[in-house]
């Protein structure tokens, strides 16, 4: 490892612009002559639209245009799509209702898009929107999983609001295992609904270039090429060669900026209609109402164990709330990103999972940091913890007894774990955490009237998403490879064009570290280009912790091609056989001699092309590659949460957090640890603080930061982060991915610690002080009696 190469914890290259206020986010972009869009949104969760009168709004000051669903339909603008086709148990395809960018005849959740007003200023657009008269016929609404099937039908194509009723696994084998089980543990779980809330709200600027009849969209996207593909091929706004999508600096995503939403669709469509750029910037309440939410499962799970304390089977039945419309990848989250992870780190011979996905009159639900894997981890890590307690076994020992230890390991639910050492992570976590000292810390807490608990979470996830053919066979509408292009300039500096997108992950640094390491050139001589479909030909973007494992593997592959070509040039320059050229630390050497040339010289010679025959060897030095993974990657690790509960107030304080993760090889450990920290905070938020709550009429009553409890600095502890390493065998860098692990691992660690503290299992997320206080009263009485 060089000072800036693979494995170096160097500060980030991109930070200078961010700490000086010179980042360039979509809302920082203004185009000449731009108008502003304001969306009139449904105040009702479910209503028929009898009529919309826009006349008064159209004549209001500064208004350029007012459009409704009729205009979208008249222009034959396609609906928003869901790109993963799930089939139900009976083989029928999922019931996907239409998802127009502006409502047509009906609104299905509070915040649904009814009309757009475009005016010279945002204030004028907002004022004019108040003059639109909509005649709504309010319909009964269903808002949660308990009543989703109890009344009104949201989409004509989905009887009883069922999107699909899907399953995976061998039901007969599972039933048989349960019939002969020594012990069965049963658990009811709610995986609470969350709002992703990246700090930068979504934004879009649509622009029409009349001279070339082409569109430009600046958007807050994690995957601008996918946005272009959907807006072009499915929504039909313009063919791809006449459509440029730019996602510049993006202020966090966590999944919510993967999807293609109504607002950017309308902005770019309207820009062509009015022949002016159209800008929209989401306010925070709109983000709460309309960004895709996450989680929202209700689950019944059963775990069978034998007389030796070995797990023999797992049976899981889940209802998943997908909201009012199917968002871009919504259908895949509670199915193939969920049930295949239910095996956890354990050797479970038989698993059966069934999932019924339902429409409700709420915002669409889709991938949020972890996407399906936090839900799976919550199920398996809660039920394993509970089983250990019921069996009177130490929870860590029970896990250890059931760990997968032989690799590769084929689970009964699709996944083939390639490598890992789960016991190593558990052991290291216990050492760092000093779990041996827990009883004395607990006694100390109790002497002060406090309850103390310790909880484990031994998580596994599937990242590096994903082998294209494999996901295609499961219903994905796209391949999940990644692309890279390496452009070497004549003076030897390098531009890397990548289909990955950085919105906080630090690609400008980590990707440059790989290049610096591989080519032996200073990191400042490398720049990373991403987020612009006119520069990068094609890409699949950043989500599913895929940028390292898939995106960097594509760069690696392209760098290999560059090196091979450079060696051919070097052979001519150094007048040696190509096979005798060695390349190391930025220098080409003729084997066994001191004849050499540095990287810059060869780059220049490749372009000058004087030393070789340009017909036999093409001038220039530029290569590209697509990397299609052969397997998922399987980051895994152990998190330990230790907390204290005040039984008088229900206040929970996290006292100690230890995370030991196996992400394979690390490029920049500082950045990796930062990803872990952020993920844990989001998981702690889910476990203790956050919950998107709709009232019975479908009004989101947690629609601002005043009402929705985001983790603040005082709510979370400092974290102890350690690593173990088993390099991933399915990609050249041995990387597994680290972006989501913290959010996946942490919720069950918190709840396992809390239930340990209060002495019973009946505690749902978010474990607010009220819930914890109620749960702690038994323990409080016991403590008082002692």
């Amino acid at each position, binding site marked *: 490892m060089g000072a800036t190469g693979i494995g170096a914890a160097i500060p980030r290259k991109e930070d200078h612009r961010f700490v*000086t206020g010179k980042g360039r986010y979509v809302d920082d972009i203004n185009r000449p002559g731009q108008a502003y869009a304001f969306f009139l949104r449904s105040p009702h969760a479910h209503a028929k639209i009898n009529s919309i009168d826009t006349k008064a709004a159209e004549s209001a000051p500064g208004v350029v245009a007012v459009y409704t669903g009729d205009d979208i339909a008249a222009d034959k603008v396609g609906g928003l799509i869901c790109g993963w086709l799930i089939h139900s148990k009976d083989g029928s395809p999922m019931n996907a209702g239409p998802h127009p960018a502006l409502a047509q005849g009906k609104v299905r959740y509070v915040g649904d898009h009814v009309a757009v007003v475009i005016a010279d200023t945002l204030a004028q657009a907002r004022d004019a929107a108040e003059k639109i008269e909509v005649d709504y016929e309010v319909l009964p609404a269903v808002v949660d999983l308990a009543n989703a099937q109890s009344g009104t039908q949201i989409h004509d194509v989905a009887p009883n609001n069922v999107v699909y009723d899907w399953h995976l696994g061998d039901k007969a084998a599972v039933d048989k295992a349960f019939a002969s089980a020594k012990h069965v543990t049963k658990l009811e779980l709610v995986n609470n609904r969350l709002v992703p809330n990246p700090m*930068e709200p979504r934004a879009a600027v649509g622009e029409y270039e009349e001279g070339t009849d082409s569109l430009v969209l600046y958007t807050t996207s994690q995957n601008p090429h996918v946005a272009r593909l959907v807006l072009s091929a499915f929504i039909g706004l313009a063919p791809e060669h006449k459509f440029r999508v730019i996602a510049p600096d993006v202020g966090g995503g966590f999944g919510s900026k993967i999807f293609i939403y109504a607002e950017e669709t309308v902005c770019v469509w309207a820009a062509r209609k009015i022949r002016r750029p159209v800008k929209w910037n989401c306010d925070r309440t709109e983000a709460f109402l309309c960004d895709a939410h996450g989680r929202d499962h209700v689950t019944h799970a059963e775990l069978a164990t034998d007389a030796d304390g070995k797990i023999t089977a797992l049976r899981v039945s889940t209802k998943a709330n997908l909201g009012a419309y199917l968002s871009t990848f919504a259908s895949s989250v509670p199915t193939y990103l969920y049930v295949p992870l239910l095996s956890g780190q354990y050797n479970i011979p038989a698993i059966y999972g069934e999932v019924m996905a339902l429409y409700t009159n709420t915002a669409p639900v889709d991938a949020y940091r972890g996407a399906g894997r936090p839900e799976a981890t919550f199920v398996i890590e809660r039920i394993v913890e509970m089983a250990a307690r019921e069996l009177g076994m130490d929870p860590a020992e029970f896990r250890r007894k059931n760990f997968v230890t032989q690799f590769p390991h084929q689970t009964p639910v699709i996944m083939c774990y390639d490598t890992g050492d789960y016991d190593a992570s558990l052991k290291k976590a216990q050492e760092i955490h000093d779990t041996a000292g827990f009883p004395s810390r607990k006694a100390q807490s109790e002497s002060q009237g406090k309850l103390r608990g310790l909880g484990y979470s031994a998580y596994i996830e599937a990242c590096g998403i994903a082998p294209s053919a494999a996901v295609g066979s499961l219903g994905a509408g796209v391949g999940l490879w990644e692309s890279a292009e390496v452009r070497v300039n004549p003076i030897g500096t390098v531009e890397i064009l990548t289909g990955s997108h950085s919105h906080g992950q630090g690609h400008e640094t980590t990707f440059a570290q790989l290049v610096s390491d591989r080519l032996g050139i200073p990191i400042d001589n490398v720049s990373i280009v991403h987020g612009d479909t006119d520069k990068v030909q094609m890409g699949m973007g950043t989500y599913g912790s895929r940028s390292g494992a898939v995106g960097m593997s594509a760069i690696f592959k392209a760098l290999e091609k560059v090196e091979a070509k450079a060696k051919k040039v070097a052979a001519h320059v150094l007048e040696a056989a190509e096979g005798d050229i060695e390349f190391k630390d930025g220098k080409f050497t003729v084997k066994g001699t001191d004849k050499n040339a540095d990287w810059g010289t060869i780059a220049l010679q490749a372009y000058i092309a004087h030393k070789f025959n340009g017909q036999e060897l093409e001038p220039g030095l530029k290569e590209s590659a697509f990397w299609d993974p052969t397997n998922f990657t399987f980051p895994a690790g152990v998190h330990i949460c230790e907390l204290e509960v005040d039984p008088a107030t229900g206040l929970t304080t996290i006292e100690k957090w230890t995370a030991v993760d196996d992400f394979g090889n690390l490029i920049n450990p*500082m950045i990796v640890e930062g990803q872990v*920290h952020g993920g844990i905070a989001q998981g702690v938020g889910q476990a203790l603080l956050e919950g998107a709550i709709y009232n019975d009429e479908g009004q989101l009553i947690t629609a601002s930061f005043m009402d929705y409890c985001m983790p603040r*600095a005082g709510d979370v502890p400092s974290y102890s982060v350690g690593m173990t390493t088993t390099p991933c065998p399915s990609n050249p860098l041995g990387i597994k991915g680290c972006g989501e692990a913290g959010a996946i691992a942490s919720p069950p660690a918190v709840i396992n610690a809390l239930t340990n503290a209060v002495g019973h299992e009946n505690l749902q997320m978010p474990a607010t002080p009220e819930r914890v206080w109620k749960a702690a009263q038994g323990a409080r009485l016991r403590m008082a009696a002692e």
Partner: protein
Amino acid sequence: MPTVSMNVNGRQRSADIDPRTLLVQFLRENLRLTGTHVGCDTSQCGACVVQIDGEAVKACTVLALSCDGSNVLTIEGLANGNELHPMQEAFREHHGLQCGFCTPGMIMTAVDLVRRKGNNLDEKTIREELEGNLCRCTGYHNIVKAIAAGARNMASMPQSKAAE
């Protein structure tokens, strides 16, 4: 439209503005100082923190007109030329940022925190004082470290700069 006039980052700026213009809008839209961000509508997130006459204020809660005659410092004015302010440098050094969106507000709050509480800040104080600044990326761990380090390093700044 009324005219507003204020000193922003050492330069006298004035403009005719709609009376309802917020300070953050004036900075971002009239002056094109886009480092001050808007992350919410309810003065909760702190992405818009600037200094007005030496004190940290959420620029989304202040009318631009009410700042007439004031001295305003934004993230763009914090560095000394090409030399980063110690708090900016500490955020970079300690990986106190990821997406960068909350960062200008965090740094402006942190500088104000040092003004109010001094150069030796313990973890508890920093966490409590960050109550008005939300970050969704970092889990706060490295922000807390960065602020503690930045505060220490500010002790060796010239007095006039440290006051900012």
